[in-house]
């Protein structure tokens, strides 16, 4: 048990440290953003990459970067640092978001994780609406007055209770979080939402529904 735990702990440390190290050294697997788009465009232009230019550093981009590095006498570590970027003739803006969320401000990232955990598969407007409900709660006297306080209130969100909040959000969720933070509120100030197909609380069901988006009723 003990050695197992130690190995697990070591793995965890490495898992957390990797994105940070990659962030410091350059753009690598799991990164997103404008730098990745630059890299993909250049690799595609030069025939190393056949995938789509989507700004997501996935396995296709990784293989292409390694191939490029091998052919250009660079260390084939799959990370685009200063040397690889120079060989590609591009400048990194360091504005890319790593998988850990660096580059996206902490609150946007946290909100994006709730939106993704609670509302992936919902229409975009419904995802912004989930973010807006969180922020409306922060502004309401009856709820905690921080985003983290609202999100981690026990039982407030299923995605927090069942751990889905820890999934890495997709770009849509991050955009929805940013739109909600910028003031978009498709719910007109709602504080609650529920799925009428699964909700059981009489208190909740007694509240007047203001609008429905996708599977959720907002009130």
């Amino acid at each position: 048990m003990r050695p197992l735990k130690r190995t697990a702990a070591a793995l965890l440390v490495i898992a957390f440290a990797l994105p940070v190290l990659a962030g410091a050294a350059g753009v690598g697997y799991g990164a997103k953003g404008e730098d990745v788009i630059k890299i993909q465009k250049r690799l595609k232009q030069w025939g190393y990459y056949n995938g789509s230019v989507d700004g997501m550093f996935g396995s296709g981009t990784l293989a292409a970067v390694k191939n490029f590095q091998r052919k250009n006498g660079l260390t084939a570590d799959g990370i685009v640092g200063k040397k690889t970027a120079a060989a590609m003739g591009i400048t990194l803006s360091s504005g890319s978001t790593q998988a850990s969320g660096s580059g996206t401000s902490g609150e946007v990232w946290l909100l994006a994780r709730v939106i993704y955990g609670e509302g992936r598969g919902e229409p975009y407007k419904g995802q912004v609406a989930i973010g807006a409900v969180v922020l409306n709660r922060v502004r309401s006297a009856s709820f905690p007055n921080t985003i983290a306080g609202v999100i981690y209130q026990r039982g407030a969100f299923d995605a927090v209770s069942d751990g889905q909040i820890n999934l890495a959000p997709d770009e849509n969720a991050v955009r929805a979080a940013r739109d909600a933070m910028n003031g978009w509120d498709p719910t007109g100030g709602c504080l609650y939402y529920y799925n009428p197909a699964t909700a059981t609380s009489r208190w909740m069901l007694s509240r007047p529904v203001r609008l429905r988006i996708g599977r959720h009723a907002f009130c």
Partner: protein
Amino acid sequence: MTRTIKRLIDYSIPVLASFAAIAAAVWGRGQRARAEEYARIADEYVSVCINSCARCGQELEETVRAMGVSLEKLSVTASVGGRVLALEDVVRESAEAQALISRLPQSQPGSAELNAFLTRAGDYARSLSKRLLAGEEPGERDKKQLALILDSCVKLTDRLSADIADGALPNGTEDLDYYGGPEAGAEEPSEPEYPELIYDGPFAEAVENAEPKWAVGEEAAPGEARARAEELLGAPAELTGKTEGRLPTYDLTSGGAELALTVRGLKLLWFMRAPAGNASGLPDDAEREAIFGAARSFLDRAGYEDMEPSFAQYHDGTALVTFVWVMDGVRVYNDLVKVWIDRETHEPCGLDARNYVYSHCERERQEPAITAEEARRSVSQSLVSTAEPRLALIPITPQREALCYEFTGECGGSEYYVYVNAQTGREERIFKILKDENGEKAI
């Protein structure tokens, strides 16, 4: 030969069976040890949760008690400085108590009222301390309200002490339904447990119940909303629903965009459309001007006139420009509209006018009592001016605005906006401008 094989088989079966038995025993032992380890971890975890809740409950009781003591001290303090300090203690203690409540695992309807009381008590104390600093003496109503808050704090402390003694505070081990479960009462409690506080602050009930000032007039018919959407976005529109609430809206789709028009006045409250989203980096001056121009012409079309761009941010291939209403050269910072422009097509792909719709109305014209040069004396010497000062009407509290001189300057490599009251010469607000690869914003 066959006999040798047969003998070998005869011997190997028991040998293999014994090996299997030994392996099973070792495996079983390992599993049992693992199960015991898990049980131990689970026990340890439960006890950490219970203890952490107990600590929260205890600290909550102590904090609310301290808040009561601060209010008692306030009632016997004469000096302005002493009273401001006591009020700031109440602000801090109420914030601490709210943080502790949010850590106690209880249902939302169960904690909502208490949370609202503590939030408003702190918010009210802050507004009172600001009034004292501005030279205003609290009136009879304030004395009564402070007494009511003290009374609630004393009752709450007693209740918490009793709950702690009885072990009645939630500790995370009970089943919890955030919304009170299927059996919870559907009716709102008729008798409020905490006093209603009348004051001017961000969490005041008056603010939560504020009515929009701009979206007024007769209710429009759905057909009119559809026609207005088509006129605005230049594509056939379809009504998808109606959102009720303080600001009822018609929700529509038009040419791949979603939008909401206020039922009263048919004002464009928000609209959103997916951008092409390929542009990146910060724009040059020419692109910036083109973006601002595109945004302004859309604002004019939507009925938001005399708007001036302030901050801009660049994300996901879009530019987000915050526009502020300008009244006779004075920037009115409550009346904001945000416009998103697709940087590839320079077409609008979003708008949010909630602030404007709630606060926009004609303001009474004011003349500044002091000159910009006189106001500059209130600005810190370390701020190096970077632009000419100009007049702005800024929110001081949710219900009060003040005419100020806006000074823009630099200090230690950062840019700041400093607002000095144009009537009293008092420094009212300071904003720091954050600039990064995505543009700028004020905090």
